[in-house]
């Protein structure tokens, strides 16, 4: 039938047209240059920023056999721009392919830029971009982001996306850095009642780092020697209403992470002063948090009272003073001591947040909401002000699940 033949013809024509059109959004994936890390710095020029792009070379490390490539695994460019969206165009003056933020893993901001007021205006552009995802991470570097990327030379993970993926993932698992996705940044910013913690990183090791407790470091303070990359991820930068106001050490960050039910920390290894050796020695323990905290508040009266109970499971990993843990008495001592230690750490943290930071570094305020019937009442209460003179008590509900492999005294 001629009509059907006509339809067939139309169909083939359509198929060919589909093949040949520019097809608007169609782009071959090898035509793009993938930005893994984005650095933001203040520029000397008024109203401008320095954008640093860390681009991954797909050819390196992806070829199985076939000789591989002699090219470098990455490329870094820095230049002045008004914002990092339009910078994609500018970058094409240097980079041969179309810049894409599809694989953006981390945005690194230098400390001095993060402390500026217009930082929030700059970073808000990520909400407008189609390619950037809100599960990218925000990090703050001690030095200029430009210098940070340049100095960062991972020895083993030469492919940058892999390096940042592993580095961040395990850092968050250990609790030493906060899970600082852009999503959390913006929700905290919108909420306005709690501080946001961004991971702290540095590729410069301080001149004379002093040895501290196993986790009381900031990035760039861990004294490590050997054949390694100087980049460190530890501790957190504190943001209040989108502006950086201070820093937390690795230990404080971990404490916050344990208190914060919205982050997903797995199990963390910590050192706790040993009660059987006059606290000179320390024993190692694995802390596991499987249940949510119990938060109770009494917000009436001038001094609001907040009670937090942290349920933790602890596995003792070492026994420096060679105590026999099989004895009930020793177990009791140990348990009590750990509870005391946790309480102390938390008390220190809240003291710092009430006096120094003037805000709580995790979304504690949302627990307060259920004590108010309506939003006007809650607003009247004014969490930000009330928190400062709140009376916060942290208790821990400890369950020691294991005393290590050997139970007997040696």
């Amino acid at each position, binding site marked *: 039938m001629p009509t059907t033949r006509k339809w067939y013809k139309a169909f083939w024509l359509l198929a060919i047209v589909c093949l040949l059109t520019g097809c608007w959004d169609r782009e071959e994936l090898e035509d793009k240059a993938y930005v893994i890390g984005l650095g933001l710095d203040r520029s000397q020029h008024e109203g401008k920023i320095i954008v640093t792009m860390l681009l991954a070379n797909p050819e390196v490390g992806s070829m199985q056999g076939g000789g591989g490539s002699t090219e470098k695994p990455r490329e870094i460019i820095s230049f002045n721009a008004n914002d990092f969206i339009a910078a994609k165009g500018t970058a094409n003056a240097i980079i041969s392919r179309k810049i894409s933020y599809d694989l953006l893993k981390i945005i690194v901001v230098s400390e001095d830029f993060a402390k500026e007021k217009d930082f929030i205006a700059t970073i808000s552009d990520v909400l407008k971009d189609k390619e950037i995802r809100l599960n990218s991470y925000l990090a703050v570097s001690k030095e200029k982001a430009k210098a940070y990327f340049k100095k960062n030379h991972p020895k083993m993970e030469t492919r940058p996306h892999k390096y940042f993926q592993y580095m961040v993932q395990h850092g968050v698992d250990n609790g030493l850095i906060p899970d600082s996705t852009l999503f959390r940044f913006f929700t905290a910013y919108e909420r306005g009642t709690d501080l946001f913690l961004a991971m702290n990183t540095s590729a410069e090791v301080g001149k004379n780092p002093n040895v501290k407790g196993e986790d009381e470091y900031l990035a760039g303070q861990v004294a490590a020697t050997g054949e390694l990359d100087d980049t460190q991820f530890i501790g957190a930068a504190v943001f209040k209403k989108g502006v950086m106001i201070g820093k937390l050490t690795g230990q404080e960050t971990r404490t916050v992470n344990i208190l914060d039910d919205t982050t997903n920390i797995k199990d963390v290894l910590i050192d706790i002063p040993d009660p059987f050796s006059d606290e000179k020695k320390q024993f190692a323990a694995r802390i596991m948090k499987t249940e949510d905290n119990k938060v109770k508040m009494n917000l009436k009266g001038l001094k609001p009272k907040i009670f937090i109970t942290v349920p933790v499971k602890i596995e003792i990993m070492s026994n420096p003073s060679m105590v026999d843990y099989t004895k009930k008495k020793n177990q009791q001592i140990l348990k009590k001591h750990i509870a005391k230690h946790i309480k102390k750490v938390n008390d220190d943290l809240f003291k710092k947040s009430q006096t120094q930071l003037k805000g709580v570094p995790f979304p504690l305020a949302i627990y307060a909401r259920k004590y*108010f019937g309506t939003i006007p009442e809650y607003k009247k209460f004014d969490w930000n002000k009330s928190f400062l003179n709140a009376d916060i008590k942290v208790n821990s509900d400890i369950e020691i699940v294991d005393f290590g492999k050997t139970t007997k005294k040696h």
Partner: protein
Amino acid sequence: MSQQSGKLGIREYVSIVILMVGTKPTGDLPTALYSMVQSAGWMIPLISAGIFFIPLFLLVKTMMLYQNQNLFSIIQKLFGKYIGSIVCFIIFIISSSIISIDTRTYTNIIRTFYFTTTPNLIIYSILMLVCAYGAKKGIQHIGSAAYLVVYYAVLSLIIALILSFQDSNIQGIFPFWGPGKLEILKGSSKSLYIFLDFFLFAMLIPNFQSTKDFLKGTWVAYICVCIQISAVVLVFISLFDTSLGGIAYPFHSEIRYISLGSYLPNVEIFFFVIWIMGAFIRFTAFLYINVQMFCHIFKIKDYEYLIPAIATLYLLIGSIPETPFDVGLVIKPIITNVVGPSFALISIILWLTAWLKGEFKHANNKEMV
């Protein structure tokens, strides 16, 4: 061999309803609810459903009086020829504008999130093309397609919600009463438009295998849908918390955010596919209902030939507003605020007229005889 041609079963009907009404919170509904009553946004669908229950119940009761007659013929019967026709025409105009706006909104979503450089017109015309093709096939086939899709749609919605749960905090729904109980009530009465589709489904009654299916299906779907909408809004509130007010399309922001572990970090396309499938079904059914209305008003028998023309008309109307903001912020609120209460009012007046005319008594007498 009887072909069961054109008859809608209860399963197909319920799946159409779930895809038409239940997918509403994947658009801009949660944002609208949140900006109205903040943390109590999840309550609105439930309360609105409660309020809308009365007119819907009366409507269904009135519809049950006349077996196998659609909404418009009953309106014309009860209100008289002239007033009835005017009312029908107004309903048609309103639902036409809703379909134009909604299709435009969906086109905007597709464009902003997935196809940034593709012209709006291309996306829009493909949407309307598929819908027109589907509507041409008739309601039974739309229902069958809906039934094949609905399980996956609901399942993927649930998966999306579960995946986002680990990052959300249920405390976000507090303070429980949001801005105050009165505000919630006010918001609920403004949000009656969520359920207006149920009003329109009364157009489909002649297409049912039995009117009982319509009765049963409506209530089953009504309960499912209001729970579904409420649950979705609840999850969005606890996930986004206060930033929900600033996110135009939370569902799409959410599926871009969630991930299945670090090896499969971005899974939005999977959800997008099923979402867009639901959208196709939704607008196909909507288009079909609108064409039925048009045919009824202008007494046209062959609806099939009308569908492409009416689809094109909606496409053109939908293309008029220049920016997404015009659609979402200016035009939509006007229509949505009017539609819900007016449809509820029509249902109640319908019932009243039937009652005053003594139709219920007639029905009883008939049964007695």
